[in-house]
């Protein structure tokens, strides 16, 4: 595909030839933001066409982290492929494991034990919190506030400790697997998890005071990168990016999968400024709302985990999975609500142990597609605000 930005050299502004007396002839500038840039969260490369600090056009270039994940899926058995799903959205690996396991289980028609289903929800929600904490911290860093970054990572450490106690890994868990979870949680894990939730819940309000309602932060993010609900839907945005635009759509509530219909929780959406202590400058669909939806989602996740821990039944944690799992002929598509949006797996089986086709719908990929639309006529500093609020993980964009 011919790149519209690269194919045309930077053109002088239309009336550059007619420079009047006392005026300075100016030119547009092409700037390469990334793939090594502190605020592009990995290896995203943005070509910016700028007039000084004003960004006229922004074109994302992706593919620097492409690892043939889908092709690998066609050559590995489902159990072997689980570790590959860890490496898609590596900040929310549990959620990826979950989606793929659900797809395979649906294809095979496998029943998952009750305890495993609860554990899966607990792990997914904990991982959602961990992922949102990174998002919160790095968004603060994008806005120039260093300290929230360390706080976000500090709280995430405790979640990683819990994961480590459950499965031994701190980043790529492969814990939720076909038929349930790989092993039961150790003794005392539930108490430790409760202790963490008790500690963590009040911290969210503290971080709202520190960053979310900080006047400078609000000035930087409110009204920046506004995505209308219609645009958000048209571009296939999901997760906090969609909800930040005021669309009340969450698969856990709208199309309940696993056991999410058993729990009480709310779907936070983008809010208009001026009410309920929301700063005046805020408009629905701006960067502040996308960020703030994540902060509120952490509270909802805490609510879900508390209910899970109360109801957690005893019993086996994994269904009997045959040594060689033959996938029946057929095609399934399962979408779940990951930390960044709807992560979907299309799996086509043809009676072999390996799927004929695996197609992944990465929420970051779809969310990023709106960047050229909103990164127009904004300042360079706003690019960090917009990309940070979309919260992409390049492992999932490039796959």
């Amino acid at each position: 595909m011919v790149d519209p930005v690269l194919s045309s050299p930077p053109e002088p502004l239309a009336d550059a030839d007619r420079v009047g007396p006392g005026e300075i002839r100016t030119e547009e500038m092409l700037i390469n933001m990334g793939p090594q840039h502190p605020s592009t969260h990995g290896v995203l490369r943005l070509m910016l066409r700028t007039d000084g600090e004003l960004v006229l056009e922004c074109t994302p270039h992706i593919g620097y982290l492409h690892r043939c994940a889908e092709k690998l899926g066609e050559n590995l058995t489902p159990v072997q492929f689980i570790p590959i799903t860890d490496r898609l959205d590596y900040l929310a690996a549990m959620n990826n494991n979950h989606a793929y396991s659900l797809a395979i289980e649906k294809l095979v028609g496998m029943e998952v034990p009750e305890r495993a289903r609860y554990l899966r929800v607990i792990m997914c929600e904990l991982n959602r919190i961990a992922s949102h904490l990174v998002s919160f911290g790095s968004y603060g860093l994008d806005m120039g506030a260093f300290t929230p970054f360390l706080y976000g990572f500090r709280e995430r450490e405790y979640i990683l400790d819990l994961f480590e106690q459950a499965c031994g890994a701190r980043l790529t868990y492969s814990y939720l697997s076909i038929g349930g979870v790989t092993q039961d949680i150790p003794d005392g894990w539930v108490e430790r998890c409760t202790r963490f939730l008790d500690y963590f819940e009040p911290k969210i309000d503290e971080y709202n005071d520190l960053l979310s309602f900080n006047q400078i932060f609000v000035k930087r993010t409110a009204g920046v990168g506004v995505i209308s609900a219609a645009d958000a839907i048209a571009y296939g945005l999901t997760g906090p990016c969609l909800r930040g635009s005021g669309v009340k759509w969450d698969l856990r509530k709208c199309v309940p999968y696993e056991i999410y219909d058993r729990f009480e929780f709310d779907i936070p959406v983008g809010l208009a400024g001026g009410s309920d202590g929301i700063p005046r400058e805020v408009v629905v669909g701006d960067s502040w709302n996308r960020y703030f939806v994540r902060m509120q989602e952490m509270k909802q996740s805490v609510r879900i985990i508390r209910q899970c821990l109360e109801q957690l039944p005893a019993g086996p944690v994994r269904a009997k999975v045959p040594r060689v799992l033959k996938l029946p002929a057929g095609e399934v598509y399962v979408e779940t609500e990951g930390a960044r949006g709807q992560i979907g797996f299309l799996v086509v089986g043809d009676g072999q142990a390996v799927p004929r086709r695996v197609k992944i719908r990465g929420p970051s990929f779809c969310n990023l597609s709106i960047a050229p639309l909103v990164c127009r006529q904004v300042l360079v500093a706003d690019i960090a605000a917009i990309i940070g609020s979309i919260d992409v993980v390049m492992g999932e964009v490039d796959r």
Partner: protein
Amino acid sequence: MTRFTAEDALRSRWSPDAKPRAVRAFLAIAVLLAILTALLWVLATRLTGVPYLLSTLATATALLLALCCLGAAVAIQFSHLVGRILLRMAFPIFIVSLVGIILLAWAPSLLYQRVDALRAQSDNPGTPFLAAAEIEAHLTGAPATGRGWAALSAYVLWPLQFRLTRDVLAALGVLGFVSIVGAFGIWWERKVAGRMQSRLGPMRVGGWHGWAQSMADGLKLIQKEDVFLAGADRVLYRLAVYVSWPPAVVLFVALPFSAAWVGRDLDVGLLFVFAMLAVGVLGVLLAGWASNNKWSTLGAMREACQMISYEIPLGFCLLIPVMSAGTLRLTTIGQLQAGGFHTWLAFQNPFLLAAAILFFTATLAECKRAPFDLPEAESELVAGYLTEYSGFRWALFFFAEYAEMFAVAALGVILFFGAWHSPLPAHWGEPWRQGPLWQRALHGVLFGGPLWFVFKGFCLFYVQLWLRWTLPRIRLDQVMHACVQVMLPLAMIALLGNAVWELLVSPGGRLAWIVNVILTAIGLLTLLTTVGIIAYGYLNRRRLVGELAVDHLPGA
């Protein structure tokens, strides 16, 4: 856990017989030098015709070298002990050296007084300078012989009559002080940042809380390759450092640390300091342009935009205390505020207090500190104008930044917060001024002097650090909006108000007194609240961080 100590490092690098060989070598050199000293001494005393000063200097040098070699031999012989003492006692040694440097800086001023007194009692006051022989004659009260301690003292005092010598000494002192401020400031910033983020910050280098971290970093940076980007303007790229760093150091020459402690007491001292602060910006512009990097250029352009928007309100804020003090001479402005907390300029009228706050905000922009750190905004412009700099050039930019930070904090202290005077009411100390030596010394420490000045400067410095690690960054258009549309009108109103105040309100009148009392109360309240919050935070630090964090991070 076993710790890798300095001893391990020494052990691993030295071959087994290296130590005795080094000791033997140093001892041999020491003995040779001692023999040389004795020979020189004999020659100097027995032979006539050899200039006295030359022979004495040679003898003293030889003796000093011999002692150094002896010391080195002892230190190497007992290296395990010396290393341990250095590590354990690092911080006391650091403090003692700091005090020693301050005392060393005191010595020239005492000597200046001595030589000035000698010049005053000279027979013919018309001569601009005294000859060495004349000084000696004055010292002993007898005709000059050219020999003995009096002659040596005369040789030491003689050059101190000249302005040039004094300026060179002052420049050396300033350079030393700025280096300490830079090294200490960077270490302190990292510790403050660490503590605010429930980390520890540097802990290893130097033994005591990583106090030598900045020096280790400096050593590392000196060794790094001097990288030029292809296409960079080599001349301007190099020049940028030399435009940015010297002004930050030179302005300290005009900055009075106390009434007598000033390199050059300029009668336009304030203007000079302000000008030097502004020159530093040119270095940033050059660096950004010469790097041939678009991010650097953007950083430089931001700095240019920022400068034209904050320098004007900053200038207005400086005019306000100048208007009240009636002078640009920094020592005079400082002297005006003697007497205690209530006599500080910031508490004289509301406009001065407003000017103090505006001044502090503008200086944050001046020093490119958060929330105005746009020229080097790391999340937007990679590192802004510093992106392509590395090694020692980068270190010099960094040093300049910290020197400027302290300089503007010190300027704020001189203009608004009582300069080198202590907040204690001066009349408390009156009886001590005539007391015995220890009382006079205590009076000097408690009621004024450079230590207070440095302390207050570092307090404002700390507020800069505090803000940096708390606040997000403002966007460029918001900076300009804040500076031009908010701070500039406010500064103008304060200037106008102060003018009206100076015209209408009599200094000793009732209104002035009431306002002074109210503002002093507000100032005291702010100070006490801040101290209270800090104390509360310190005492409850574990509770504030949270139980889990304490389990996780034992040092937090």
